[in-house]
């Protein structure tokens, strides 16, 4: 029952989202971009928030997803461009890359893990940009590769077509959004459901235990490296899916989506929104991308302002926007339950522990 309510509200939110941002300068295209990138942020959050792994190389999965999807349409199967095949090949390829890279990095900790993922991302950038340049068009990137229509049983849907016209007052018009948004919203819904299910699942429970106390987890008999590898590959696959959607949506991909900038964006989006929260990564992605869009239209100093926002969130909202809100609510509840639960005799050793 609670699940049903959750999913109904999530669906409602996704339906209203592109129209709700209309009065503040948002538009259907931005809403679509936010959800596409948000999928990668959700994946990144599974990695950082639940597995405790800070990857600085997510751009590799994102970029490769975009390239493989577009190449599937333009080079691998140009006679029969197929939307689903492009997505499937991109996600499969990226997952395999994630397995290979993951096996080399998951035994590393902290800065070493971050640096090695960064190094792999830089290598993939170089490979795409220089080594396979006759396939990837090097510096120019892939351009003008129209997304194949979405084949759905007997139907074939042109995702770039707008929805029927219907005036919605201050919230714009129904035709402001394209079928792309509808499709991406459905995928996002699935990804949110998956993320929620995973974090509550047996796998998510063990992942949380490993994050909380890795040594104890090793000595109750969990194979730490395999858990981390699985989280790394799941995050990689979601990032690859996000990249594939981005490539097909933008009809182009250039090497700059494989740079550190892109990797850093996922970190910023997730941390701003709230690590370890279900909607935080999506919220952070939306917030930062919206500001990026609105502010960069007015001034060149966007990077500076982005930096300031990041600093302010870290300083004043540790745990991110959503994380801080949730903590505040949980905190109020905890004060009450602690008071009910803890007798003075029990409280004493706990206090001693805290001052130790």
């Amino acid at each position, binding site marked *: 029952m609670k699940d049903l309510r959750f999913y109904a509200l999530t669906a409602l939110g996704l339906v209203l989202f592109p129209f709700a941002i209309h009065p503040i300068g948002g538009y259907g295209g931005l809403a679509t971009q936010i959800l596409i990138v948000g999928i990668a942020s959700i994946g990144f959050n599974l990695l950082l928030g639940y597995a405790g792994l800070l990857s600085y190389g997510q751009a590799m999965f994102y970029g490769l997803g975009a390239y493989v999807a577009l190449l599937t349409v333009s080079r691998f199967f140009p006679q029969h461009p197929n939307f689903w095949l492009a997505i499937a090949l991109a996600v499969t390829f990226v997952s395999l890359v994630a397995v290979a890279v993951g096996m080399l990095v998951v035994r590393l900790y902290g800065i070493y893990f971050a640096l090695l993922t960064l190094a792999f991302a830089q290598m993939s950038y170089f490979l795409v940009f220089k080594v396979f340049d006759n396939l990837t068009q090097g510096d120019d990137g892939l351009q003008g590769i129209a997304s194949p229509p979405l084949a759905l049983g007997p139907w074939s849907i042109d995702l770039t077509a707008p929805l029927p016209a219907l005036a919605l007052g201050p919230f714009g018009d129904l035709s402001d959004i394209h079928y792309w948004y509808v499709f991406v919203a459905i995928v996002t819904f699935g990804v949110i459901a998956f993320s929620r299910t995973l974090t509550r699942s047996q796998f998510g429970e063990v992942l949380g235990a490993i994050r909380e106390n890795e040594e*104890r987890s090793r000595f109750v*008999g*969990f194979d730490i490296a395999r*858990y981390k590898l699985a989280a790394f590959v799941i995050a990689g696959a979601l990032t690859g899916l996000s990249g594939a959607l981005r490539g097909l949506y933008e009809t182009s991909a250039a090497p700059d989506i494989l740079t550190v900038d892109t990797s850093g964006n996922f970190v910023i989006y997730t941390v701003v929104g709230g690590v370890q929260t279900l909607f935080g990564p999506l919220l952070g992605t939306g917030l930062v991308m919206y500001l990026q869009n609105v502010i960069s239209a007015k001034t060149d100093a966007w990077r500076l302002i982005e930096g300031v926002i990041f600093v302010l969130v870290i300083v004043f909202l540790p745990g991110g926007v959503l994380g801080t809100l949730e903590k505040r609510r949980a905190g109020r509840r905890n004060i009450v339950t602690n008071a009910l639960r803890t007798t003075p005799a029990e409280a004493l*050793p706990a206090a001693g522990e805290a001052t130790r």
Partner: protein
Amino acid sequence: MDAILHTMGLGKRFGHFAANSDINFSVRPGELRAVIGPNGAGKTTFFNLLSGLVEATDGEIFFKGDRITQIAGPRRVARGIAKAFQTANVYPEESVFQNCRLAALAHTQGLFSLEVFRRSTRLGGVDRIAEEALELVDLAAFAQTRAGDLSHGDKKRLDIAIALATRPQILLLDEPVAGMSIEEVHKTDRLIRGLAKRMTVLLIEHDMNMIMGISDSITVLHQGKILAEGTPAEIRANPRVQEAYLGGHTEGEL
């Protein structure tokens, strides 16, 4: 080959320093064995070799006749070798019950499970194993307390309960009563005696009264090697053991 666990020429070198060398050690099933020795004798290194926390540089370890020298820590736990840590090692943010539940889950599911859809609550036996472990260490009343809020002694007993929830055949206890009050020591003493009826127990301890009282036999380590082995009475009467404890480790060089 009656031993449940035995080592042959086991050693661990850190650079040029031999923390353990040439250890031929063996425990019978059901035995309660204490490992003692002066500070720096290599007791903890020896336990770390047995649990798989560190890798041996020499020799072999056998568990129930199988060579486990190269097998990683989690796999040894799965086979039935569990350990409680010198400093209580628990999940501080989880409830006492959940601490044991996680260990019981590891025992039930194995090393890894890619169950990303269903919750662990569907696994019936897990709760039961956790409850049993808590009852054994007498912490059932604190099941819903946050583990980080437990007193020092209770935390150490919770660490033992976590090890028990992996359903071990052999339990390694590294200084189980260190830092405990006298009442807590008595309680833990009774607990260990009870456990020894169910499984093989190996313990490192400095509390001589306790060791002499509860051990079936004692192994004395000195300078990384086995100095003596025997019943508590034999160890107490052994002049070399007395020398090692009283004379310090420079004795042999004089």
